[in-house]
């Protein structure tokens, strides 16, 4: 099959590319765009290591063809930190609260938390646990991830109140 033209915004930058239509979005991001932050953990949409943000929704990019993302606005882990290089409150909270160990689930987990806190800026612990249930972690037992997201929620609320 001949290549298709795709056009999308990734982390604020517009890109145009040619791609084999059966290319999965995760492979397009990792191999064509060199954005290796999102990972592949299962191939069956269970683990969430490949989570990216597409048009304001958390999406498992291993189950999306690149063509399906045509015209969309994508944020990956590489685009979460502030443009000046300082960490986003969620990234900082994961570091402060030991919310990661091997780091393999972390990009997907943080990208999911980034969206979760926009959907629900002040979630309860239970809401966080349900909110990240599409993202698996084998190292932390989630306890410190939940703690990190709670801390980020407080931090972001304080910041918003100050503004």
């Amino acid at each position, binding site marked *: 099959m001949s290549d298709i033209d795709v056009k999308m915004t990734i982390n604020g930058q517009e890109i145009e590319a040619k791609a084999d239509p059966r290319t999965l979005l995760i492979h397009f991001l990792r191999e064509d765009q060199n954005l290796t932050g999102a990972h592949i953990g299962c*191939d069956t949409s269970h683990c969430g290591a490949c989570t990216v943000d597409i048009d304001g929704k958390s999406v498992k990019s291993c189950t999306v063809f690149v063509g399906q993302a045509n015209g969309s606005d994508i944020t990956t882990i590489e685009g979460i930190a502030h443009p000046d290089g300082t960490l986003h409150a969620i990234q900082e909270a994961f*570091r402060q609260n030991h919310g990661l*160990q091997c780091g393999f689930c972390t990009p997907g987990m943080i990208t999911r938390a980034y969206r979760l806190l926009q959907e629900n800026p002040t979630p309860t612990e239970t809401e966080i646990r349900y909110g990240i249930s599409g993202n698996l972690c084998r190292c932390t037992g989630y306890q410190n991830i939940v703690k990190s997201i709670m801390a980020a929620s407080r931090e972001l609320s304080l910041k918003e109140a100050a503004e």
Partner: protein
Amino acid sequence: MNVQSPPSREERIKKLQGLGSSRKRVEDARFTQGTGNYVDDIKLPGMLFGDFVRSPYGHARIKSIDKEAALAVPGVIAVLTAEDLKPLNLHYMPTLAGDVQAVLADEKVLFQNQEVAFVVAQDRYAAADAVELVEVDYEELPVINDAFKALDDDAPLLREDIKDKMEGAHGPRKHHNHIFLWEEGDKEGTEQALNNAEVMVEEKITYQRVHPCPLETCGCVASMDKINGKLTLWGTFQAPHAVRTVASLITNIPEHNIRVVSPDIGGGFGNKVGVYPGYICSVVASIVTGKPVKWVEDRIENLTSTAFARDYHMTGKIAATADGKITGLWTHVLADHGAFDACADPTKFPAGFFHIVTGSYDIPIAYVGVDGVYTNKAPGGVAYRCSFRVTEAAYLIERMIDVLARKLDMDPVELRIKNFIKKEQFPYQSALGWEYDSGDYHTAMDQATKAVDYPALRAEQAENRVAFDRGETRNLMGIGVAFFTEIVGAGPVKNCDILGLGMFDSCEIRIHPTGSAIARLGTISQGQGHATTFAQIVASEIGIPAEDITLEEGDTDTAPYGLGTYGSRSTPVAGAATAMAGRKIRAKAQMIAAYLLEVHEGDLEWDVDRFQIKGNPEAHKTMKEIAFASYNQAIPGLEPGLEAVSYYDPPNMTYPFGAYFCVVDVDVDTGVTDIRKFYALDDCGTRINPMIIEGQVHGGLTEAVAIAMGQEISYDEIGNVKGASLMDFYLPTAVETPTYETDFTVTPSPHHPIGAKGVGESPNVGGVPALSNAVNDAFAHKGLVHTQMPHDHWRVWQTAQRLGLTG
């Protein structure tokens, strides 16, 4: 003018962020921003991709392989089969257990998803297309995947390649599907103790086949530089140096021409200890094509072909007095090793350290017998977040103690306390030959029972049982206790080697002239945070702040030789090497300081970050000053520079222990088991970084929840793996995972330079029996003695139904 007062001693200690500091991790900056470098992130010019054709059958003869259609796929470079590897003598590879394993199936396949051919293509899509087009003609053969039938007289022969070799790596084989019989202890004496016992209990306890399932699967990139003859192999290796040596022995490439690199590793848990066909095929493909070749397995390949764990069918018998003093322990294991014996154990221990099975108890006599057998299942038998076969042993003894408690109608906590090894008995010689280094079990159990208010829990349970019988609730409350003793930190070299490679470990420290440092170790982090914690050990030893110390591991061209990270051995062995290397540096620093201060070495004392003259602390030289002088000042009788290396062969292993309590509520109508409370007290000796220890415990407990409550790799009778994707293989989400309460006592190891024991695996070892005991306890008053794991809803419901409790 304001003169700033010099920092106080406390401030200087704090600045080091050494032992005991909950220092934030240095790894996190890259991982939280997506700039980690895992093996699948590696991209080299011209890199090719490898993918396997795998067997759909559990046992079949390969009649023919037709590559033609596959080779016609655009972008496909080669299709390798056993025939291609034979001239190189690489169609079989040695396993860590003294057996051989087919790299690509030689004439027949022995388990479903066994590697049959290796396709090499320009991209992973072309490789996947070609895999579908390799035509393999099979003739099905009868399958054995019930270990109890493997040794039947009429059981089909599985391993034709070794059918005449009746002397195995661990002694005689008594049947064509038998691998070894390994025994320890006093069989006759133990049987006598059982015969003379006032009370005897016996139970058959199976620890099901599970899989470590780290979130990152196994993979590698092999790159043969034909110009200079150097092979570089990046991969998910828990033991990079051992991989280099083994690769050299297998391929005959001189060891100096092989560089093995473990980049960031996305969790290991034992899965990444072994050597897998994908590594060998990638190396061969790179040599053949002259291009780098990447191979990364997918999740189904991971769960079905690389490194299962457990599959231990255990029988335990305990002899005891009528008042509950244990007088003997007899155990036998039928160990299902799958199609090849690829267990990752020290060479002399084909059942690992299973003979730690006497646990935390003073048992005067014991016997262990383990029969290993071949079946049509995937090879492996790795230590899934535990020291070699220790979690199996801990599960057996901790379940058996509960079984004995039921029989005696004794409280399981009371029975444990009655049989504990006492504090004054350490170092303690166990009946099965171990020397326990240190422990204080009574104190730990006392602290734990108080923390959970054990009597109140039992009182609540008594009320719950009455309420259940009155029909006021459909939930049964279960209380599980486990008191485990681990054995971690292999060596010593005199006992422990893998394929002849002694299990020491190493650290090299170089101090830079301006007083910062780099330390390199023979281990490799897979999430444990070595770059953070080992820098803390260095900081405390040499007085340079942890933030000024770079820590590197995993590159065999730069790191000193070591046996890697598994079996909780990094802190006990490499951590000790780190402290010892630091002490060597300090010894030279003392000579330099003596010269600079114009005193005798003996007149100096070490204080946090400096040498000072005894009785005159104003006269001192800091390590930073000493470092500069070591390079830049000609000191008579001393070589310039300040660096040291230590290869540490531990005198003994370390014995971390812990007291765990778990409370569950079982809904008898659905089998849904809610973990209400999980309390874990760990004693890992000296604590290096409490934040990281706590994180390790949370993670290990969650793996224990996964194993006890749902994980199983099972096979149907014709050899199909059932449920080997994350659709079916249970990894708990944040929703099912409970919130844990952690606690600790500190009983330092007397032989470790800083008294540390290792902790990463304890929660898996103790967590599984605590959970299983809780589920069994929920039904104990209804007559249940033992039910097999995993305690998923279906099985728990079946138990309730069998006991006549369902609605």
